[in-house]
């Protein structure tokens, strides 16, 4: 079946499909790399191409994928958020604390996760736009603040034992598919639509391309930027909720250095680190490339050190191909 899909990329693209792909800002190369990688893994490990394992890949990619949505929005708008992973940890602890320590029902736990994420994003946005502190510094500070707060709230311990409704969000399997996979795909589709097809999305890319031009064109630059950080915070809250529900506990160390993995996914997917270009679907492909790579190497019992090397190499390669093509297009 994979062979058929590849063949269709080669010969079967209609003009309409190509246009759709271009409008979605997905680079054909990244899709090819993903499928190629899948092929290699299937070749090397007999366990790769089972439904259970493919669902495992989606499940394992869910948190990074959701964070990559936030990274894509902020970065394509010309910003940066280094606090995503820490805020994810804080959100999970906030949710678990609300339900376990305060004894409130599951919906309040969800609200606490998303609320904590958005609050952190809101603070990031305020500091970047009103206090004029560079985004790198603000979100680096938030990285420490959020992690520290998560450790304080939880007293450094894992908060275990969520209400069953919350656990379902992480461990449920409606139609045989893990709930986090549904949440991940649903969030990605909405976010992709918002970035690629709405005015908000066009404004985001315009802002990332040139703040001056966006301002001159009448865009309320500061307000828009703040909105982007809140969106990033929201994705961190959602990722925190998903992981919390998956392990039935708030883990204050969850999401350690995930911000870098999420940014890597966005960039492999074609987002420009300096803004002006970005695609959520691209970022999802980027996240899946890493997910497939890790899963395949795990199946082959390759040491995790090599996995990190492989992902680093893929990142550099992706940007290298991108740059070469950009030069080719100009020439």
């Amino acid at each position, binding site marked *: 079946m*994979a062979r058929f899909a590849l063949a269709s990329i080669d010969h079967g693209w209609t003009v309409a499909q190509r246009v759709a792909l271009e409008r979605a800002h997905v680079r054909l190369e990244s899709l090819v790399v993903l499928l190629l990688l899948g092929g290699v893994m299937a070749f090397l490990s007999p366990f790769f191409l089972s439904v259970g394992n493919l669902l495992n890949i989606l499940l394992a990619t869910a948190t990074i994928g959701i964070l990559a949505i936030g990274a894509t929005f902020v970065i394509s708008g010309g910003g940066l958020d280094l606090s995503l992973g820490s805020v994810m940890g804080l959100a999970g602890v906030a949710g678990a604390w609300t339900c376990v320590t305060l004894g409130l029902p599951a919906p309040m736990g969800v609200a606490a996760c998303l609320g904590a994420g958005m609050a952190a994003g809101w603070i990031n946005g305020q500091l970047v736009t009103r206090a004029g502190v560079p985004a790198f510094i603000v979100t680096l500070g938030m990285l420490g603040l959020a992690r520290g707060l998560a450790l304080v709230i939880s007293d450094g311990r894992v908060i275990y034992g969520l209400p069953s409704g919350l656990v379902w969000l992480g461990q449920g399997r409606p139609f045989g598919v893990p709930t986090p996979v549904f949440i991940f795909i649903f969030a990605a589709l909405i976010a992709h639509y918002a970035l690629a097809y709405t005015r908000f999305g066009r404004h985001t890319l315009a802002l990332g391309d040139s703040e001056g031009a966006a301002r001159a064109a009448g865009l309320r630059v500061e307000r828009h930027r703040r909105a982007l950080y809140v969106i990033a915070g929201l994705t961190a809250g959602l990722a925190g909720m998903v992981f919390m529900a998956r392990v039935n506990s708030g883990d204050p160390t969850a999401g350690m250095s995930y911000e870098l993995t999420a940014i890597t996914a966005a960039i492999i997917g074609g987002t420009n680190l300096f803004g002006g270009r970005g695609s959520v679907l691209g970022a999802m492909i980027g996240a899946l490339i890493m997910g497939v790579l890790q899963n395949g190497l795990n199946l082959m019992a390759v040491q995790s050190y090599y996995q990190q090397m492989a992902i680093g190499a893929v990142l550099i390669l992706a940007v290298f191909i991108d740059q070469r093509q950009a030069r080719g297009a100009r020439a």
Partner: protein
Amino acid sequence: MKRMTLIAAALALSVSAAQAQEGGYAVLMKTLANPFWGAMAQGVEDGAKEAGVRYFAQAVESDQAAEPQLNVCNTMLQRKPEAMITAAINSTNLLPCLAQANAAGVKVVDLDGNLDPEILKSAGVEIAFSIGSDNVAAGAQGAEWLVSQLGAGATGPVLVIEGLSGNITGQKRAQGFAAKLADLAPGLEIVASLPGDWDRGKAATIANDILTRHPDLVAIFAANDGMALGAVEAVHAAGKGAQVTVIGVDGNADAVKSIRDGRLNASVAQLPYLVGKQAVVDVAKAIRGEAVAPVIHVPTLVLTKAVLDAGTEPLLAYVK
């Protein structure tokens, strides 16, 4: 176009080349960046040889990579192992995977005692057995050795450096030490018990600060060797090497070297090699249907310069 053809060819090949090799024991550790887990991996290998079984081992990049470890655990289950031997990063991160293992009839072993029996019960996860060092006993052994050196009538301030705040292993060691010390030598007073977060530098800073506050400090107990080695350097830098007795836990290679050099006074050595080896041998027994104790404690050994120089202690063979 040529490239596409090649890819298609590779894919076609893949279907024919793929061969299933199910079974064996899955061994999931924390991180091999720590020599402790390296020694345990060696024990697993030798144990598997002894028991005549196949195994495959995996670890993650750091001992805080909770979600990556869960993902690796799920992946390992795809290979349909007979047993899942896991050293969980915390008491909850692997539970969904272990529940799946239970459902598939795979025997689950808690390597190094990272799982909490009560949480396991409420999560409905059943383990075949838990194997590791007795951390309370290890702390108590440290206190016993200290009192054997200073005498039961000794007096003076003592510092305890705990592990990562909230970490159960560090807490057990510190508690075991404190309880035994109060019991054997009430004159030795613990003036501070602070979390060093398993960090060598942090432990050195703590030792420095407490030495300033209590210049007559007589002993430091650190919940692992890394921290003990940090503390011992701070003590020597302050010129109090002869006055302060420093004890660590783990018996890792750096600590052994420091003890031989006459810097660190003692380390309560865990024997991860033995833990790994026995885990595999015992799970083979459990699979054959033989009875295995639900909690297996592997002994710990107080390493000192005298013990190392004499080299007669039989357990020394397992200190890697």
